[in-house]
């Protein structure tokens, strides 16, 4: 190596050798935490370039019905993949997990996730799994097994450098530009209300209800069957909900102007004409807003507006004021035109009705919320959000910019991060940037105890 007979060729070779050595050294330092060399931490698998630590991470929004994926810094996810039967007939369900953990086998979740994430990486993102960090948006109600399963798939099959879970309501709030918000996520299994005050999610006040996409799907399926005598398939029902349903912002049942318009749908080849408002509007009201007959809904079965009100009532009095004017609606069902307005209207009716009236519970509430509403309905407002994925993308890309090239120094200077992160692992490499609460592959795959506990934010372990 040292013989430099052809001077230019020799030196360049020398330089290359040094560069290779340096690369080796720099890559070995961040992964020294892994105890013994193994299948997972073999040097060939470990990321070898500095770039991998500094590239914008992949952001995954994994929901029960679909996966949104993209790279931090983009305004929209690159792809949105629904979960459903695939061409090879391997995936048989339409949901990644069931709310009842007993009906979900983790093996199935692993298989399906692995298949879909493969598509995500190689068909849409066009990236190696091992080249990027991953940020996953989690619902506050996500189960631990599921979080572990997702991390396992990413680490084991895709060799991701690290996995970070980020609360999806926080993402939704960031994408709205707010620092305080009440995020209402109308998802598939559950509708979750999460208050966030000054960037801090108040998880103790988080409420959820089963009145969500799945219930709506079942109800619409029954309704369509009643009107057409055909059994609509899962996809047909979903298309109907997404493309035809609407919610009138004000209560129309009193004015009795229900139009007897007919609506044409095609179910398994046959065209049917169904009454418009009965099928397209009523199920929404019945499912999301109608209280139980005797006004005693189960604790996990509140109508959405009652859920919002009960969540607000559970908050401290200093946080309520800003929450009232910062309600964010996200989730699949919130795209139904008019639904968010209608829910908002119902919340207003509860807390600050137009005219005196309502039952005793409402009166109590009205009195209780008087200091913040001052009887003014327009104080209860909703704000627009670009969605949880975009919020995460904003946050991660800013955080990355900030850590990689601190604005004070010139661009390209890599700043050392001073503080220790939440997971308590100190920084070893200045050439990397860490996201808060990052979980690294080697630790996760080698240390079973670590893997079991790291995602549980309710218990404080030595790892956190």
């Amino acid at each position: 190596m040292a013989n430099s007979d052809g001077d230019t060729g020799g030196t360049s070779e020398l330089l290359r050798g040094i560069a290779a050595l340096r690369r080796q050294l720099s890559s070995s330092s961040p992964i020294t935490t892994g105890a013994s060399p193994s299948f997972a931490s073999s040097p060939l698998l470990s990321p070898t370039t500095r770039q991998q630590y500094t590239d914008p991470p992949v952001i995954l929004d994994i929901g029960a019905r679909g996966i949104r994926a993209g790279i931090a810094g983009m305004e929209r996810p690159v792809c949105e993949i629904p979960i459903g039967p695939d061409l090879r007939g391997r995936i048989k369900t339409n949901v990644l997990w069931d709310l009842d953990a007993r009906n979900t086998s983790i093996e199935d979740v692993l298989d399906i996730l692995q298949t879909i994430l493969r598509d995500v990486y190689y068909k849409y993102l066009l990236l190696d799994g091992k080249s990027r960090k991953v940020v996953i948006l989690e619902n506050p109600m996500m189960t631990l097994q599921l979080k572990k399963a997702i991390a396992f798939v990413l680490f084991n099959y895709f060799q991701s450098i690290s996995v970070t879970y980020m609360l999806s309501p926080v993402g939704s709030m960031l994408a709205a530009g707010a620092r305080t918000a009440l995020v209402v996520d109308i998802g598939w299994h559950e509708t979750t209300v999460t208050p966030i005050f000054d960037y801090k999610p108040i998880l103790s006040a988080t409420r959820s209800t089963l009145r969500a996409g799945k219930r709506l799907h079942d109800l619409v399926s029954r309704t369509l069957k009643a009107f057409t005598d055909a059994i609509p398939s899962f996809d047909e029902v979903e298309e109907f909900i997404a493309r035809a349903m609407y919610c009138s912002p004000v209560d129309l049942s009193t004015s009795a102007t229900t139009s007897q318009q007919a609506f044409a749908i095609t179910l398994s080849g046959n065209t049917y004409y169904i009454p418009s408002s009965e099928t397209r509007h009523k199920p929404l009201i019945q499912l999301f807003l109608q209280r139980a007959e005797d006004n005693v809904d189960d604790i996990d079965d509140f109508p959405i507006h009652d859920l919002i009100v009960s969540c607000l009532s559970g908050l401290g009095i200093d946080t309520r004021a800003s929450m009232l004017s910062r309600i964010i609606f996200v989730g699949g069902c919130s795209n139904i035109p008019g639904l968010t307005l209608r829910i908002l209207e119902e919340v207003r009716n509860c807390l600050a009705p137009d005219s005196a009236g309502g039952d005793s519970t409402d009166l109590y509430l009205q009195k209780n919320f008087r200091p913040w509403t001052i009887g003014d309905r327009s104080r209860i407002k909703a704000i627009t959000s670009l969605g949880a994925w975009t919020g995460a993308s904003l946050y991660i890309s800013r955080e990355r910019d900030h850590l990689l090239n601190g604005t004070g120094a010139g661009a390209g200077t890599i700043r050392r991060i001073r503080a220790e992160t939440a997971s308590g692992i100190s920084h070893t490499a200045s050439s990397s940037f860490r996201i808060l609460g990052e979980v690294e592959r080697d630790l996760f795959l080698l240390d079973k105890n670590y893997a079991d506990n790291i995602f549980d934010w309710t218990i404080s372990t030595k790892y956190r």
Partner: protein
Amino acid sequence: MIATRYPLLRIHCPCAEPITDGPDTEVDALTTSGSPDTGLDTTTNLELPPTLDNPFALHALNSLYFCDFCLVLRCERCVVEEVVQTYCPACLHVYSADTTAGGNEPSRVTRKGRSDDATFCTRNCLQCPLCFTSLTTFATTSSEGSEALATVYLQCSHCSWDSRHKGRSLIFSKHTSLYQQVRKLSAQSVIDDESETHDTPATTFAELSQFYQQLYDSFEAEEAESDTSAPPSPLFSKRASRSLETIRFLKSHYSKQGGSSSAPSPAITPSSVLGVLGRAGGVSNQKTREHAEKEKERCVSYIDEKAEIEEVTRMRGMTSLDETPTLSQQRANPFVRPTTSSDLLPLPTRLRTRRAKRCRACRHILVRPDVSSRKVSTSSSASGSAAGSASTVATAFRINLLSKNYIPTLRLTYLPVTSPAPSSSPYQAGFIPHITYSFALTLFNPLYEPIKVTLASPPRTPKHGHSITFLTPSFEIGANIEDDWDLQAITSLRRKFADLKISSTSNISASSESARGGPNLGILDRGRNWTSVIFEIVPANERSSEIEVPLFVSFAYEAEVEKDFGSGGRSGESGDSGLFDKQQREVAFWSVLKIGRVIA
């Protein structure tokens, strides 16, 4: 639901087995249990792998790879993939290739400062928003005036979607960089309906991005003033650092006041504490703080209730689903989510990847695409890359260890032995219970060495109890050597092959004759590198149950391995025993034969 076409062969990959059993131990256990010596006797206690009925563990032969180092099959889950090249499937333009090209290791795609454009063809390839086929560009007719030369429109050759017929007529000003033009259009599409205040997601995102940048900058400035132990994330810092300051200040305050005496000193009054708090930024400057708070949320925008109501009234007037795009059409647009069918814009074409694949256990490269043609074109067209000179994707592979070149291919043929021959094959018609069906299972040997095959299956299928009988569980297949094969190779192999051939030819005549006499002897027919054996199925009386036969195939052969890896390779071409070592190799795998359904 896609109907299964029978017969179907799927090969089981043991990588999906429970993690506690490594794939290696699994294979070892199986090979010993189904070793050729014991044959049928062991099939009684043949243990099926637990994931044999998991569709994710079953693969078509063509989608499997074979690691010739570990001697195991590798499926898509037990390979590590690396993107080597991205290209447009429509124009075959290569967008990125390996830049480092070091040694025999496929290097990574480096995409610095990659934007989302990196996943789309940024040339002129656009897709139909309705049916996702490629759109064709047409020039507008000359009747439209002198500008006609420069204007083009798009048309779909499959569903005849036309860019001129949609809500707002789409005619492009030039025929190049259509992608950029469409991108620009999609950014405008929301502003279109005259409400100027309505922001597109793109502008909102840019605004928010800038807003957070400023937030970070202000944090930076604040941090520069007081270089304390600031928390790592500025988003959470402002209040936190302020309260930290307060605590520190109070501490020092109290320590000054309190000192040694335990009695509260008169100096600590509520007002003094409040003053301290105020100084630390808690109470004072209410106005400026409120202003700052407002400034911090200046990007918040309230829901446009009027627009929402308009949307609802529009939806209410709808009479069929046709007015809104389908969900897949909505999801397909990467820029905006279209709400009405007339909103649909041509879609950019997503790039595809060529990937290298490695065995997950030993890191051996199983597949490596050849990207050499690209390299030539980059060096030549480095200057004129903007013009988009021809650098199309290559289709060749440098390494491609497909499983069909390493393990026997199986083919199933129905033998109508029953005297009233059925009019249609039972695959379609279905199987009648309690009738013996005979099949010929033909195994083709792709290897250059003769192999000794052992088949094993449980006597009854695990799910429904259809009984299975293999008449010949153990047999030999000749080598795959063409007649016009390289002469040298033949001479090197002939010696080894000769005695075997003699024995096998005698076998052929004997067995084929006897096979015609009665099906009991098992081997139906035999060729140069293939053997057909008979097996029988008696379907159990289980209505419309699928007949799935688990089949364990193990084969052994003597491979010639280079003795010394370091000594200059094949300089001595004699290929004699001096250079090569004989090594007994044994490969085994589970497969599932899906034969058909029992008549309902």
